[in-house]
């Protein structure tokens, strides 16, 4: 169906023919599904801890900015059950847990930079004793007025990293010459990850200074490195192991390290196993979130709504330190175009420092904020020109000859998105419903409906090029069972089952032969975080490489032993066919072992083709793009601002799916998470820099009834034009941005009150935000 269908051009001959595939493409359930449902899946806090395990609780700063004058911990130490109290003075190595710039201390010393910043940790016989003791500290701080908002940071001129911009042509001239111009400001709220399992780590000391850390982290290698750095020991002394997380979403990428390092430090100081599991309120106050942004934009366009020039400034509230803000804001900038060709463009950014917890990775990694701004611009142009917003979007799509992104990468498959969007437009009856909604609104004074169909183009690859590598380790045992290990972590996204499907496919064995094992830095070292949607792209390839190495050895051994050409050795149906003979996979493994054939191999993969010159603002940072589109219909109540989503239609491009059930789960889950970000999830800091919404009682993620019964999701039939694992595409992050259609539909509903006027709706579109926009358009009494 698609011109870029992978099967036509695949040069990767050893890949099995589609019809011969036995494991990939199948909608298998999550490998831990039975364990999840029966309570048998083990998370860090469920590990049967060794006898004598101690428990940590942390004490946070009561002020957001100032000088730490006294930290009196005598009452903490005196509390029954307390074994040790740790501060910066107890750190044998470096008091630094930062992923990049040495600007995140394990314990604040001298200065405090945000409310809740860790000042000390208590180690006690029970978690309850540690928590009680932690509240007994006497802290004296010479407080300063904190920077909390974008405006505070701009007024003080404080940033965590230098400003950065890239672009093309002369946008000022293009704007000046354009027949029509608009400008605006959009505020975009942050988002709490709300992984159901909070941050947790268990550190078990070994001999000679060795330490094993069980951590709920997406980045075991970073936990290993930070623990070693804090303890002042070589990386090789530290092992980090992760069986699974109860959700990550980016929140356990750089920000799982502090809790692991604290547990490890406690284990080092006490010589006993130590566990730290944050209480939910502490987790929400002490760990970073999605960056909130203020986006200022100017656009010049013609009467058809086609953009001539675009100038955008992303002001990102990064919190007190850099953390991952370099990449997050860069990715926002990389998605300033979303699916649209911007002939003359300037994309600028400021990474603002505020006295709040350091914002971090969150599914989409800046992309959602980058994209939301240009989608608002599309709506604003539509409101100004009177054209349907979808027509304005289509007028600006990338197309042959209009196919360079603002950062110089060619969009090689622009027709794919156009076809995808037009397919969805047809399948969801967009035009018919547009008419029906106009009729509804005309006769409904209180309730108003809105409709929007928005596209997603999301770049796949870490923009920090060196992270685009992965390793795997595969062992075949002499009974034919297979041990699979790779550098990716399982946080619910189904990575482990997908990679196991790949390995079973490679060996032609039953999936049950492939034993999925916990991620550990001791088996596969120097890994990238499981992030950037790249888990199966990278680890699937690495695991296939390892399996293929062993398979080739087995094939060569079989060919030689049975005296047939290697081409006549086939691995399928849990057997090995050698000429006219066949035997079980286990029998061959045993024979190979007796012939001293190595049955273990490491695999490695690095993403080809990518390069990025940040200084020049040019290159190909992305191996490929993932595409999708979604349409939603909403109803708002103009008396209260309440909103319901009535229907959602999604068409999404996952290439040729490794596992359609897992992929659909990612699409639906990502969409609903994005919908929460743009509607009910509101982070509120007071002027003292305290987070007021630090628990699920006050921070509202979607519940079951928020998802409409009419929720239609389909996979777009295509293959990845690039040589990815079985021509699949990354799926973790892109669907989150499909939810932009909900925000846009809400704005559309408000717009019906005063056609032609801009809708001053910021994100999240809470009832209060919606009612404010309604009132500004004169729509509420």
């Amino acid at each position, binding site marked *: 169906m698609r011109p870029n269908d992978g099967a036509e051009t695949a040069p990767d001959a050893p890949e099995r023919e589609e019809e011969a595939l036995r494991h990939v493409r199948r909608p298998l359930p999550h490998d831990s599904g039975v364990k999840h449902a029966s309570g048998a899946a083990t998370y860090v806090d469920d590990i049967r801890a060794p006898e004598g395990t101690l428990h940590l609780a942390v004490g946070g700063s009561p002020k957001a900015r100032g000088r730490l004058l006294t930290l009196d911990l005598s009452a903490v130490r005196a509390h029954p059950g307390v074994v040790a109290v740790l501060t910066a003075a107890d750190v044998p190595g470096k008091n630094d847990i930062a992923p990049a710039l040495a600007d995140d201390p394990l314990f604040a010393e001298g200065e405090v930079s945000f409310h809740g910043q860790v000042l000390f940790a208590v180690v006690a016989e029970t978690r309850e004793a540690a928590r009680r003791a932690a509240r007994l500290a006497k802290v004296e701080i010479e407080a300063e007025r904190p920077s909390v908002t974008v405006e505070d940071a701009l007024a003080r001129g404080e940033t965590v990293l230098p400003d950065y911009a890239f672009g093309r042509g002369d946008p000022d001239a293009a704007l000046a010459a354009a027949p029509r111009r608009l400008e605006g400001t959009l505020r975009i709220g942050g988002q709490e990850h709300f992984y159901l399992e909070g941050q947790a780590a268990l550190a078990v000391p070994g001999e000679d200074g060795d330490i094993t850390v069980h951590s709920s982290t997406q980045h075991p290698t970073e936990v290993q490195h930070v623990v070693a750095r804090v303890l002042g020991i070589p990386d090789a002394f530290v092992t980090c192991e992760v069986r699974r997380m109860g959700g990550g979403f980016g929140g356990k990428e750089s920000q799982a390290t502090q809790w692991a390092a604290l547990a490890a430090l406690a284990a080092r100081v006490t010589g006993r196993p130590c566990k730290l599991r944050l209480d*939910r309120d502490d987790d929400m106050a002490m760990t970073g979130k999605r960056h909130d942004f203020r986006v200022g934009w100017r656009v010049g366009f013609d009467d058809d709504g086609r953009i001539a020039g675009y100038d955008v400034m992303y002001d990102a509230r990064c919190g007190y330190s850099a953390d991952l803000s370099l990449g997050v804001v860069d990715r926002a900038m990389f998605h300033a175009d979303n699916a649209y060709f911007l002939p003359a463009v300037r994309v600028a950014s400021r990474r603002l420092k505020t006295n709040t917890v350091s914002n971090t990775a969150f599914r989409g990694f800046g992309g959602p904020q980058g994209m939301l701004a240009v989608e608002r611009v599309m709506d604003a142009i539509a409101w100004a020109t009177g054209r349907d917003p979808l027509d304005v979007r289509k007028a600006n799509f990338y197309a042959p000859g209009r196919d360079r992104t603002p950062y110089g990468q060619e969009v090689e498959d622009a027709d794919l998105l156009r076809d995808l969007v037009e397919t969805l437009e047809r399948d969801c009856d967009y035009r018919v419903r547009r008419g029906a909604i106009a009729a509804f609104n005309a006769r409904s004074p209180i309730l108003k409906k809105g409709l929007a169909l928005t596209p997603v183009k999301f770049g796949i690859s870490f923009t920090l090029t060196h992270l685009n590598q992965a390793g795997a380790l595969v062992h075949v045992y002499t009974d034919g069972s297979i041990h699979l290990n790779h550098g990716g972590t399982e946080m619910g996204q189904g990575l482990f089952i997908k990679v196991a499907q790949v390995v079973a496919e490679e060996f032609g064995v039953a999936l049950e032969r492939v034993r999925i094992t916990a991620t550990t830095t001791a088996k596969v070292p120097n890994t990238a975080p499981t992030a950037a949607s790249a888990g199966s792209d990278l680890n699937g390839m690495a695991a296939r490489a390892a399996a293929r190495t062993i398979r080739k050895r087995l094939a060569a051994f079989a060919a030689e032993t049975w005296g047939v050409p290697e081409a006549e050795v086939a691995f399928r149906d849990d057997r090995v066919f050698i000429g006219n003979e066949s035997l079980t996979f286990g029998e061959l493994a045993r024979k190979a072992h007796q012939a001293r054939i190595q049955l273990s191999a490491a695999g490695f993969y690095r993403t080809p083709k990518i390069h990025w010159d940040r200084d020049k603002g040019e290159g190909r940072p992305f191996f490929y793009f993932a595409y999708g589109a979604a349409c939603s219909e909403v109803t708002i109540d103009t008396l209260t601002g309440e909103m319901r989503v009535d229907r959602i239609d999604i068409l999404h491009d996952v290439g040729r799916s490794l596992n359609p059930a897992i992929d659909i789960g990612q699409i639906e889950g990502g969409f609903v998470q994005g919908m929460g970000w743009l509607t009910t999830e509101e982070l509120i800091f007071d002027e003292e820099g305290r987070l007021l919404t630090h628990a699920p009682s006050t921070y509202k993620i979607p519940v079951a009834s928020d998802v409409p019964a009419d*929720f239609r999701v389909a996979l777009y039939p295509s293959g990845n034009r690039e040589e990815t694992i079985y021509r699949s595409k990354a799926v973790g992050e892109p669907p989150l941005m499909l939810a932009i259609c909900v925000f846009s539909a809400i704005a559309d509903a408000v717009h019906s009150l005063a056609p032609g006027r801009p809708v001053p709706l910021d994100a999240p579109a809470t009832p209060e935000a919606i009612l404010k926009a309604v009132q500004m358009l004169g729509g509420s009494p």
Partner: protein
Amino acid sequence: MRRAIRFLRRGGIVEIDEAPPAVTLLDWLRLREGSCGTKEGCAEGDCGACTVVLRRLREGRLVAEPVNSCITLLGQIDGTELVTVEDLAEGAALHPVQAAMVALHGSQCGFCTPGIVMSLFALYQDAPRPLTRRAITDALAGNLCRCTGYRPIVDAAFAACAEPAADRFAAGREAVATRLAALADGQDLFVGTAERFFAAPASEEALAALCLDHPDATLVAGSTDVGLWVTKALTDLRKVIHLGRVAGLDRVVEEEGALTFGATVPLARALPHLAAVDPDLGELMRRFGSPQVRVTGTVGGNIANGSPIGDLAPAFIALGGTLALRRGGEARRLALEDFFLDYRKQDRQPGEYLRSVTIPTLAPGDVFRAFKVTKRFDEDISAVMGAFRFRLEAGRVASARLAYGGMAGIPKRALRAEAALAGVPLADETAWEPALAALEADFAPLSDHRASAGYRRTVARNLLRKALMEAAGRATRETRLVGHREMSDAAE
């Protein structure tokens, strides 16, 4: 006097004669019993990851109720059967609810899954059939999932719960009912010492005496709020008096023109009675907390707790509700609105307890409306809650009682607006304006993390306007996104 907590567990009886007064059921499961299938997600009863099921006798019938074990005190489960996620499968054979969750891809990270399985297990046992989507999303309102987007979970619920229960739990109902009946010994329960105890008296006499002896004790009914004092404020509750076993305190009495709820009537049990008074009260109760909160939380607790944003108080004030209190042998009665003195300050003396709440039902010509405005429809706390009772005569508002939550430090009537409404014709929208404007003078709301003062003011006015529009005859299909009355009105 019994000195040990007793409950059924995995076919045996667990007896606990030594435990901290406020140890939570979740901590007991994970730290003492070593059952780690049940998870802690928030420790405040909002995420549902810790959901377990208690089977108990309610009015002689065995029911399966989901509860948040994180904020349930261990002693509260006295006399019930405790079922956790580890108990459902028989060997390798998954329970139908578990099997559907696996087959339909209902879990991703799996951390919320045990709680969701238990909520669906409760639904499986007692679902209203034919099963509707609404019944499923209501059953899941107290379970947060951050991964799936819920669609596969709802599908699993349909697949597993559509038919009447046919598992070994259903098969064993009679036996369990018999064993639970045998545990209901009618004795006062007292675990601990005079200085540090968990007590669950069995009679009002014993309760009154205990309250007099220990005016410093904490009274606990559902512990949906007190549980957070334990898990979040780390309050060391030394003396806990649990009201849940007091005979007669959980009675619902329907009389001509009035409805009386004993203080310990769970919100879930009040729901059908209130829905019969007015569909808006049913809708309010449907959106009250979550199933886990409604089966443990009580009518009396929601009122005695004195929260300015509790939803029952405004609704009951609008109806003209009254309270009955008792201290030792002294009983008294007062109007509900007079009970709330100031922010978190109620007219309750040390040693005094709330016995019951009485509400007048609606008279012919009465129109009642209640609206709850929140960021999220289900399982959220009101930014503004408005409850209105209009007494109509000949197309005019003869009198009105207007009560709001979230607009002041206490649930409060809008007296100026009430006065301004008297005599106003319903057909003339311009005639409503003085009353709408009077709300400005009735309230000076605060800005907080739920809403700004300005939003609260606007919404308070718009809710009254909406109620008047509906009273004047506008269909709720045209005025509301949820809680449409047409179906229930048609059924009347």
